[in-house]
């Protein structure tokens, strides 16, 4: 798509009808929790939007986030919107590599100074920067350099947003999130492992429509998408209320679609749009497929005591520790009994 073409023209050329486009706009508006009256505004703004320059940096990551966004079964309006942005640099998707690619990134940064959106996926190793370098440049240096002149940063995926899997105990690479390094730019955390594609495009659509960053929650995530609790929106909730739980993945309860709380579902403590926006073009989401939510959009979800242990189980230690506590108590008991006996004896002696 040529740079001066606007989004509306581009989508029309790709065969997206006006109807399909408006449908996308109203879905996006409702996703962003905007009133119906805003649909026209979204459509107008999106249709005439110029392609924003996007620089996408991939650090310590598994490419799942990029996969999530680009591997849709059939090209959706979301993916076309993604095509329509001027993706000036993306390690994984671009053909160029090495110093040539870096030169292109620097040129794009220079050309769009103060206006480009920096998308980051993956965490940044600060323990030993050598764990991840691109063209000899450490992730830390590249992030600092690219963040300097950007308009805002979108940290895509739980790794970029909160440190992610690389940050899991014992965190061998010293992995940290973007927000632990960059303090002077607006950062939008689009967490999830991976994030829902519609949420990524929703954030981009918000930029294109309003030219500003969306309202964020206390963890820096767009409130419109991450304000929803999975458990509150889960279609298995009635089973939870009735006390009907699957105890194993192949018991009668599992076959009947009962609640997965006892199999470790973290839905009650997880905020994400899975239960409403869903995955694979709205086909379903993990709980619908019979597996509990693992809380992938929450910080430290991998260090919370196991994906298959219920939330209320807790990490209470080991039986040996409990026995140890009983032994300590017994020793204290013996001690206080001896002290009491002495006291009593002394008292008796004084009486006599």
């Amino acid at each position: 798509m040529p740079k001066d073409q606007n989004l509306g023209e581009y989508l029309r050329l790709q065969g997206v009808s006006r109807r399909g486009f408006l449908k996308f706009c109203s879905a996006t508006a409702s996703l962003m929790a905007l009133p119906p009256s805003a649909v026209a505004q979204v459509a107008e703004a999106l249709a005439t939007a110029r392609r924003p320059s996007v620089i996408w940096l991939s650090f310590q990551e598994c490419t799942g986030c990029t996969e999530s966004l680009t591997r849709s079964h059939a090209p959706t309006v979301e993916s076309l919107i993604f095509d329509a942005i001027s993706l000036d640099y993306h390690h994984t998707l671009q053909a160029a590599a090495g110093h040539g690619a870096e030169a292109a990134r620097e040129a794009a940064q220079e050309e769009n100074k103060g206006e480009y959106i920096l998308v980051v996926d993956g965490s940044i190793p600060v323990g030993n920067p050598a764990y991840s370098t691109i063209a000899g440049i450490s992730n830390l240096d590249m992030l600092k350099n690219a963040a300097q002149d950007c308009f805002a940063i979108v940290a895509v995926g739980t790794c970029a947003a909160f440190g992610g899997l690389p940050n899991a105990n014992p965190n061998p690479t010293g992995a940290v999130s973007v927000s632990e390094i960059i303090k002077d730019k607006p950062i939008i955390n689009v967490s999830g492992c991976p994030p829902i594609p519609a949420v990524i495009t929703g954030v981009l659509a918000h930029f294109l429509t309003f030219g500003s960053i969306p309202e964020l929650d206390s963890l820096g995530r767009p409130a419109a998408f991450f304000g929803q609790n999975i458990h509150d929106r889960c279609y298995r909730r009635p089973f939870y209320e009735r006390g009907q739980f699957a105890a194993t993945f192949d018991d009668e309860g599992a076959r009947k679609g009962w609640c997965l709380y006892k199999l470790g579902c973290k839905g009650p403590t997880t905020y994400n749009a899975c239960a409403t926006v869903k995955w694979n073009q709205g086909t379903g989401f993990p709980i619908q497929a019979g597996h509990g939510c693992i809380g992938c959009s929450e910080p430290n979800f991998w260090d919370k005591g196991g994906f298959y242990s219920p939330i209320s189980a807790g990490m209470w230690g080991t039986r040996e520790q409990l026995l140890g506590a009983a032994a300590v108590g017994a020793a204290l008991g013996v001690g206080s009994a001896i002290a009491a006996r002495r006291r009593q004896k002394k008292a008796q002696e004084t009486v006599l």
Partner: protein
Amino acid sequence: MTLLDFALGPGLKWSLLIMIAGLTWRVVGVFLGRWRRDLSRPRSEAVVQGGLRTIITRSAPARELEKNIRFQHITGYIWHIGFFATVLLFEPHIAFFESVLGFAWPGLPSHLALVVAAITLAVLVMLTLRRMIHPVMRMITSTDDYVSLIIIISAMVTGIMASTHMFPRYETILAVHILNVELLFIWIPFSKLGHLFFWLLSRYRIGSYFERKGVKA
């Protein structure tokens, strides 16, 4: 570390350890302390039966007193049964016990457990108010009782709020509820709430003692 991580991790672990150490301390201390030697001739040798009988007979008020304490008696039962039904039969609680004990048991539907909890809480609040108003009750109520009541009432309130999602952030109210229960764990061995574990022992002891003395009570 979030508040919930703390509550489910170190908070849970240390409160359990303190509770267990405290309980064994009390039991061992009592058993190994000096017992007064009873030099009198026993009126009855059936001290074991006497002890066991008292465990049962003390579950109902003495006939002579029944009329006077019927209210206390009935509400006391409602509150205790309701409390244990909520603690032991609410499914997320069972999941907790299963993680510690290694086995589970059937529970109540969550909304039924909620109704039981609400009734229990209402009775407990009523009993607390009565304690504060009734002149005799007031005299026999100590700070120990009030602290216990505050901890239990707040544990029930936060539990109901968590299970009904009546607080904007579920994980926050859940963490507060769990921390509240951990405070209860720590408080149990050092307060009158120790009767949770010691009621059988103390009834047995009194019963066998009375039996030996020939007291029918």
